[in-house]
């Protein structure tokens, strides 16, 4: 039995914005009366042109223009809002730091479809680009730690995968539009974040003055070399470390790397650049691309892989990979969903109802009393009825003062059983219980309406922010 759903990906970036629609095929591969539904195929049906993100004179996102753009693209793709059952809107690059971005995107997500969720944050952006580029899939097929560098206008977003699983995500102030140029070769903009690096390199680039090609090449080369050293786990100078936005774990040496993002369109065996090529977009993007090609194609230590997508990696990640399916035996009431932006409380001390209640109380106190929260756990302490009944009692007792839905997500396949016990013992409590979902403290989750007996869930991971 197969079913298809339509998913939208919308990427609002510092420089450019895009929309894609993809078709996800859900199949039940079970041969008995216990369903086992999985996403078996992801097909991109429509890719919008790459638009310049509409900005108002004050530099904020022009929400109305964005709305119009979205309407146009839905019409062009011949997609109706009500046909779109899932997907994600993501704010990427420097625009995520802009004040009105979140608001604009939340309005957009409501207009985009029922369960098209708003998501932001440099880590999530890295992760989605890594999925869209194909780094996660590669690491699942081959025994390699694979990083995807999504090099955009404002930032470079890195996600590291091993065995198909995310290992790390971080972002760097490296991008194609951090230095901008006019047609007469003069510099029109330099990102303030580059100042320490440029000073240390002794570059004399200045806004309003003509740029020397050699200096731009040197800067682009430095960007590439910093990324090369990150891949090889070689040390960075303090002014280079300053380009990290947040921090990543130290992972050691990487086996393979791929590139996505607008700049990656230039990471190939290209002829030497002349001014005409350089100035095509009025920025250093093409130069940065060429520099990365030189830095990575000339060394044998890290394998350079072709990415599946370049400028569209993030938007395809948002449209095709943001949504996960829960297990197929769960406890859900469609009348209670969709739920969006639910903070996750992770419980570890499940051994006794008393410990559980104490842990929950401490972690619950951080949030307002009326806030809906999600309880995340690995599974019951053991697999017997008594273990599960204890867990159910512990959860009910711990949450007895909460008026909201008792929303539990777990990794092990026990959701239907735990849900049954929670309903049976917690007379009248509203219960949602989902499994095969891994959510960490600090994550936010969105829960959609059930499709073919399984539940679409978006886990917005912020774990690498420290």
């Amino acid at each position, binding site marked *: 039995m197969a079913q298809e759903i339509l998913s939208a990906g919308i990427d609002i970036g510092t420089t450019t914005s895009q929309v894609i629609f993809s078709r996800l095929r859900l199949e039940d591969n079970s041969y*008995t*009366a*216990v*369903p086992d539904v999985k996403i078996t195929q992801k097909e991109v049906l429509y890719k919008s042109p790459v638009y310049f993100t509409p900005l108002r004179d004050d530099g904020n996102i022009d929400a109305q223009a964005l709305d119009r753009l979205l309407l146009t693209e839905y019409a062009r793709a011949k997609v109706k809002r009500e046909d779109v059952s899932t997907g994600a809107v993501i704010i990427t690059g420097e625009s995520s730091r802009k004040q009105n971005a979140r608001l604009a995107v939340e309005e957009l997500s409501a207009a985009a479809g029922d369960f098209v969720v708003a998501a932001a944050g440099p880590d999530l952006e890295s992760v989605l680009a890594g999925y869209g580029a194909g780094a996660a899939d590669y690491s699942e097929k*081959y*025994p390699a730690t694979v990083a995807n560098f999504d090099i955009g206008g404002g930032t470079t977003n890195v996600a590291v995968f091993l*065995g198909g699983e995310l290992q790390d995500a971080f972002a760097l102030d490296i991008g194609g539009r951090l230095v901008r140029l006019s047609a007469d070769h003069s510099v029109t903009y330099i990102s303030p974040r580059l100042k320490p690096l440029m000073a240390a390199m002794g570059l004399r680039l200045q806004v309003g003055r003509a740029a020397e090609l050699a200096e731009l090449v040197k800067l682009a080369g430095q960007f590439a070399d910093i990324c090369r050293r990150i891949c090889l786990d070689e040390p960075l100078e303090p002014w280079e470390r300053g380009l990290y936005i947040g921090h990543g774990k130290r992972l050691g040496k990487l086996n393979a790397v791929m590139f996505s993002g607008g700049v990656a369109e230039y990471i190939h065996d290209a002829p030497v650049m002349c001014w005409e090529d350089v100035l095509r977009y009025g920025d250093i993007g093409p130069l940065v691309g060429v520099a990365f090609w030189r830095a990575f194609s000339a060394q044998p230590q890290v394998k350079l892989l072709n990415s599946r997508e370049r400028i569209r990696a993030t938007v395809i990640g948002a449209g095709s990979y943001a949504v996960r399916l829960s297990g197929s*035996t769960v406890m859900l009431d469609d009348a209670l969903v969709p739920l969006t932006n639910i903070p996750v409380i992770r419980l570890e001390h499940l051994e006794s109802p008393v410990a559980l209640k104490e842990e929950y109380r401490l972690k619950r106190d951080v949030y307002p009393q009326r806030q809906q929260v999600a309880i995340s756990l690995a599974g019951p302490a053991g*697999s*017997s*009825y008594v273990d*599960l*009944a204890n867990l159910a009692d512990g959860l009910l007792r711990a949450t007895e003062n909460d008026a909201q839905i008792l929303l539990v997500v777990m990794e092990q*396949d*026990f*959701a*239907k*059983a735990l*849900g*049954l*016990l929670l*309903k*049976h013992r917690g007379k009248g409590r509203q219960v949602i219980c989902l499994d095969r979902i891994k959510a960490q403290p600090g994550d936010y989750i969105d829960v959609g309406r059930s499709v073919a007996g399984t539940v679409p869930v978006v886990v917005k991971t912020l774990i690498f922010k420290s």
Partner: protein
Amino acid sequence: MNETEEFVSDISLPEVKERVLVEHPHSLAMIKRLKKTTNARLGVGRAGDRYRTETLLKFRADHAIAQDAVWTDIDETLIDEMGFYKVQTLVQNKEEYVRRPDRGRLFSAGTMAAIKRDCIHNPDVQLVIADGLSGFAINANLKDIYAIMMDGFQEKGYRVGTPIFVRYSRVATMDKISEALGATVTIQLIGERPGLATGESMSVYMAYEASSKKPESQRTVVSNIYEQGIPPLEAGAQVVHLTEVLMREKKSGVDLKI
């Protein structure tokens, strides 16, 4: 030799199968990941063009578990503890059970009369517990699946009949019991034919107004119930859900488009 030192390892332990026996693997991590996706004998290496000794011994140990499961009479301690009503088919011993599947589907007239005399009539849900081809499966899973099913049935307000344990039973005994007692939904827990992966796997067969006049396709089945397969608790919750579906749709098996 020190007495506490273990010289011979226990080949029947499940973790023996988790070991990678390939010499000089290109990527140990990759083989381990592959092995996690299945309990087939992957990554076992070879000695010439044959199995290595450890693999062969493990294979034979697993086969022995399957043999034991089929040929061992079920230990009824748990059945007695739970106070189930006990009957037996026409079969007299294990050998006859294996040779004469037809007799494992039938009760004597006396047994049928006793069932009618002693058990609750016209229940919403009738439970039948059958040893089938593995009594081990019943003893491993019964307690947990039974407890959660009872919670579920109570929650739904179903009238549950007298649980009946059938010794030397094939699946079709559920039809006879359903007919005798006029049950709406009959649910049979039965030990599966053991394979080389486990001897503890159980199936649940369910039918709406189960009848010996209906074809085998009347039955809805949940199989592969054991700790590493579908956990008995989760299977029990699914059975409760399916019971609701059967009650609502008033049909079961292939007639039910699920």
